[in-house]
């Protein structure tokens, strides 16, 4: 009986053990297609969108990091950054070796320096990606 209870406890605990650190990253990655759609709706040229995605993928960035980068760029475009420059700064930073949060922060800092983007301190994780933001067609 004790053995049975121990086994039952083990199985009950199993789902908890599966709660890994990957969850936030996966949830962020799920937003990548929606963020790219938002960029397209904001008027970013298809070629620029493809170039950014290809660059991110070619450099081996996981989809959650790509979502961070694209989210920053979309915010900048929605705030008035030139649509044709979409991803230009990103490529330079990727070439310099920046990845993940450091890359997202560099993009944000660049946009702030140009007077573009969201106020300091607002984090991209808070955005509601189920409903794309920005200008509507």
């Amino acid at each position, binding site marked *: 009986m004790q053995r049975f209870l121990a086994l039952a406890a083990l199985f009950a605990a199993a789902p908890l053990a599966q709660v890994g650190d990957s969850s936030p990253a996966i949830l962020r990655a799920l937003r990548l297609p929606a963020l790219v759609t938002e960029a397209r709706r904001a008027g970013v040229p298809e070629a620029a*969108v493809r170039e950014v*995605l290809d660059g991110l993928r070619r450099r081996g960035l996981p989809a959650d990091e790509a979502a961070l980068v694209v989210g920053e760029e979309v915010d900048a475009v929605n705030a008035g950054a030139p649509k044709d420059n979409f991803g230009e700064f990103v490529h330079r930073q990727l070439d310099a070796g920046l990845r993940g949060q450091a890359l997202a922060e560099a993009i944000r800092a660049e946009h702030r320096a140009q007077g573009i983007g969201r106020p300091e301190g607002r984090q991209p994780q808070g955005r509601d990606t189920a409903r794309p933001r920005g200008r509507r067609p």
Partner: protein
Amino acid sequence: MNARIRWLAFGTALILAAACSRPGGEAAGGASAMTAVDHAVAAAHAIQANPAATDSILAAHGLTRARFDSLMYEVAADSALARAYTEAIK
């Protein structure tokens, strides 16, 4: 007579081989594209419903982390697929 049958069989085999190896046929491409969105949407819905179990949900959908990343990139890169995915996960 035998030679004629052999030539007919050879010709049929050539036609079948050509039909099967047609690269990027519209029907085949469309079917696989729809599968990618369906696959991504099914995984996304399951993860959104139970974010604490992402790893096991990915496994249940036959996805490794790398394959999942690849799927997200694939859907995002195609404007129609990305739009369909975005609408479906609203």
